[in-house]
């Protein structure tokens, strides 16, 4: 079974310049695995060296962030659309009076999601 995956503009150059592709899979993890097998250059932009989805990469099933569903195990069906949605982050160097949160963006996004789910 194939589902449609929307590719954001910055990643299209690594996905045959397509804005969407059809990819096989029963869960989000399976779809992303098959997507990055087909387009190997996508992998380093979606996953860290440790093989985890980067903290600033968000996956939506239709209009819902999969963090609020079943994460990578979220089931998909043929009529679903998966979107890769960027979080945009950055900032200046760490300095006096400007503490960086320990754990960085991953922890912050986790805290944000937990707050939103309450």
């Amino acid at each position: 079974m194939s589902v449609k995956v929307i590719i954001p503009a910055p990643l299209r150059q690594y996905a045959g310049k397509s804005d969407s592709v059809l990819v096989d899979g029963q869960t989000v993890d399976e779809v992303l695995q098959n997507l990055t097998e087909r387009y190997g250059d996508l992998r380093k932009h979606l996953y860290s060296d440790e093989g985890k989805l980067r903290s600033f990469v968000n996956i939506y099933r239709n209009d819902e962030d999969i963090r609020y569903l079943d994460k990578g195990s979220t089931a998909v069906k043929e009529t679903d659309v998966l979107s890769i949605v960027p979080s945009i982050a950055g900032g200046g160097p760490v300095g006096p009076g400007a503490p960086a949160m320990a754990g960085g963006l991953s922890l912050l996004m986790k805290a944000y999601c937990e707050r939103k789910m309450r």
Partner: protein
Amino acid sequence: MAFELQRKELERIEKEGVASYPEECCGMLLGKEQDGRKVLSDILPLNNAREDSPRNRFLILPEDFVRGEREARARGLDILGFYHSHPDHPARPSDYDREHAWPWYTYLILAVEKGQPRDMTGWLLSDERASFLPEEMTISDEGTKFEARSGT
């Protein structure tokens, strides 16, 4: 790829940076890619979600990204990149900027020193994610010749 903007848009970003000082401002760069150049039409200021550390971090949440993307699409524009300020730090990308960057997007960085706007530079993430490359910027006054600036 060169990035083109009018001076009035540069001044809007400077006003954003001054207004948010000593915290970082952030927003989207909306426009079109034309003949291998990115041409800025408008900026879209967005909320900096880093409540824990807004003086040296910014975060645009995915729902704000989606909202901005919809607005861009409704106006026939694309997201060309993002701007943010570095309060009391040079307009150069930090390692944190690079680690969280996306390819293709232009990252404009405005230095704001003691509440006053200073340099603004443009950067692109390299293909292998190892570095930021300076992007050529051209700034125009309406009807006058272009002035070149780059992030070197």
